[in-house]
């Protein structure tokens, strides 16, 4: 009888607590999607598990794939009204989603303190704000580095700038020539680098001349002359046999990091976001890699801009899931439980307190990447104008016309004119 009473009391005691928990936190399931490689998926899964431990009533379903697959899938999901509640976002693609109101403004959650942004710098937040609305939040901050295979250059006796030294685009061209000449002397058929046709790299060049890719008004902020210069920069190198054949370069774009020319020491330099340093080090353990600065303008104008992955919340989710999604974003941005696993995977944490926190945990390689980001952002902590709708198509067009010059099907002048015209048309078509 005594025991029965005890059990009864215990049960009675539980009833109110259970119902209170149920009232406060109805169980909810949300979906998150990100891009990456196997290593990143492992990390993120651990992070999501940690989140579920902290918020037991929220279940996080995870969807992930490679960079290309991610964007293909996201486009289809968003179009079908079936977007993940929390989605990885990137400046390159952000315009396509944010200008079409596919993401939820986060101001409400920021004002109410659910998502804490007090530890983020103004510059970083500005980059995520459109018309006063915070449309996404950065995961980490990274910058592009000119990654150089120092071992290869030393063997040939090519002189390189020291770590942290500045060099101009003209200097870079001369290094490529010097490298090729010394490679021939040594009886080797090696080249310094490949053609660069990512529009973000051209943006770097344009900014070195005091221009930009897009202006605040959403129009083109560079001239057709700038494009001509960029196309001929590589065209000249090709004519002098200081850059590999066009078909070789074209083939590289279908390869993974491990199969690529740089990881296999076929070329000596590549431009990559510096947070990927650890991936290259893992591939090339016996090689000394140098994080070079991106070239400055030929008159010495320095430039850098922040890049990186972001989180956004889908505007089509219901309120309950959006609330849970906001909690998840706060966790991913601001909680040590998250950053002890995330580390430098996406760059230096936007939350400065977390940046300090991980600096004590990371490997030497990641510490180098952190140092590089800090050095670069000290130089010019630049944001860039938010790309307009149609930016994705312009990006493809830029590469396409550069290919025409690479294969010699079109002169630099023709290609640049055609690209510029095409870009203007795309912007006009997207304006309405």
């Amino acid at each position, binding site marked *: 009888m005594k025991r029965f009473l005890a059990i009864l009391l215990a049960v009675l005691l539980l009833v109110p607590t259970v119902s209170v928990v149920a009232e406060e936190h109805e169980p909810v399931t949300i979906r998150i999607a990100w891009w990456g490689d196997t290593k990143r998926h492992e990390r993120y899964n651990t992070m999501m598990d940690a989140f579920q431990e902290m918020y037991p009533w929220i279940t996080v379903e995870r969807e992930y794939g490679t960079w290309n697959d991610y964007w293909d899938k996201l486009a*289809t999901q*968003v179009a079908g009204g079936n977007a993940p509640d929390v989605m990885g976002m990137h400046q390159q693609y952000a315009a396509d989603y944010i200008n079409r109101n596919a993401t939820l403004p986060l101001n409400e959650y920021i004002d109410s303190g659910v998502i804490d942004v007090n530890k983020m710098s103004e510059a970083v937040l500005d980059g995520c704000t459109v018309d006063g609305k915070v449309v996404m939040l950065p995961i980490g901050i990274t910058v592009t580095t000119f990654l150089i295979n120092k071992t290869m250059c030393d063997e040939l006796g090519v002189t390189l700038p020291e770590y942290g030294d500045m060099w101009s685009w003209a200097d870079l061209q001369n290094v490529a020539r010097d490298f090729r000449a010394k490679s021939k002397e040594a009886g080797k058929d090696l080249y310094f680098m490949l053609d660069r046709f990512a529009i973000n790299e051209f943006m770097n060049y344009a900014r070195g001349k005091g221009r930009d890719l897009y202006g605040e008004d959403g129009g083109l902020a560079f001239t057709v002359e700038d494009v001509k210069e960029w196309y001929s920069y590589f065209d000249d190198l090709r004519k002098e046999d200081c850059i590999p054949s066009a078909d070789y370069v074209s083939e590289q774009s279908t390869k993974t990091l491990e199969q690529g020319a740089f990881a296999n020491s076929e070329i000596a330099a590549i431009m990559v976001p510096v947070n990927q340093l650890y991936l290259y080090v893992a591939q090339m353990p016996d090689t000394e890699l140098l994080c070079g600065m991106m070239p400055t303008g030929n008159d010495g104008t320095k430039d850098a801009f922040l890049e990186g992955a972001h989180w956004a919340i889908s505007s089509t989710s219901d309120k309950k899931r959006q609330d849970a999604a906001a909690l998840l974003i706060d966790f991913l941005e601001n909680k040590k439980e998250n950053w002890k696993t995330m580390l430098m995977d996406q760059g230096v944490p936007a939350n400065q307190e977390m940046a300090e926190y991980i600096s004590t945990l990371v490997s030497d390689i990641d510490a180098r990447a952190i140092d590089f980001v800090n050095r670069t952002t000290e130089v010019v902590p630049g944001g860039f104008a938010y790309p307009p709708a149609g930016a994705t198509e312009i990006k493809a067009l830029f*590469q396409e016309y550069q290919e025409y010059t690479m294969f010699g099907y079109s002169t630099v002048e023709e290609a640049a004119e055609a690209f510029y015209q095409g870009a203007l048309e795309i912007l006009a078509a997207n304006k309405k």
Partner: protein
Amino acid sequence: MTQRIKSGVNLSQRRETRAGYLFLLPWLIGFFCLTVIPMIASLYFSFTSYDMMTDPVWVGLSNFSKIFTSDVKFQYSLRVTTTYVLLGVPLQLAFALLLAVIFKKDRPGIRFYRAAYYLPSLFGGSIAVAILWRQLFNKTGVINQMLAVIGIQGKNWINSPDTAIYTLISLLIWQFGASMVIFLSSLKQIPQDYYEAATIDGASRPRQFFSITLPLLTPMVFFNIVMQFINAFQAFTPAYIVSAGTGGPMNSTLFYTLNIYLQGFSYFKMGYACALAWILVALIGAFTGLIFGTSKKWVYYD
């Protein structure tokens, strides 16, 4: 009395009809939800500017007029796809017919060879084979290694704009198995007496082929041409994989379907992509109509 029987019949008839529709239901649902309704929707979207996230805006015929007047990508993709179809399909069928004739006679082990040559058509359209093709035809691929043996230095076939499409055409030709099997079965149905009579009349082997075999096979040739044309027009996977989704180098592998995909899902111009898709429908319809129209002139039925 009669009244009752009648209604009883009606009842069971009605019940059977209902059961019939019930059994049809899974197919009907699929047909309407996955085919008819999306097709009607896409026809509507083709007259709109639609980015899939905001509401479509009616623009009348402007998608179509842009396609026909100022879209270079449309022209490239049309050229690539027609080259692919007009070269690939006839060569594929010629190959299928040739091997069907070779494999007609029952010899020991022939079944193995038939199966072996049929196999590529089962997985030739897959992603794995497209990746394999990329390896075969690149600078250091097997094809160039074989060419090196006979002293020819091959180029980077799959990454050169002037040869990339031909590697994809060869992939199409390689998938001749399905047509071959159809040819084989109808070859066996040609009565042996025709050949005996021809032999007695002194007709040579090639003469027999062109005067007996080919005319009697024309219904099958007709069928194969129609099927393969329609399939080839809609090819997507090889180009998507080989060019990593770009249609490059220099648009040389920009299949029509790949262009539709890029316009719709990469550039968010779904209305425009729908218009392109309907032009493809019309094009395939016209091609098929043309083949049907001329068929009276060259297809012989016994």
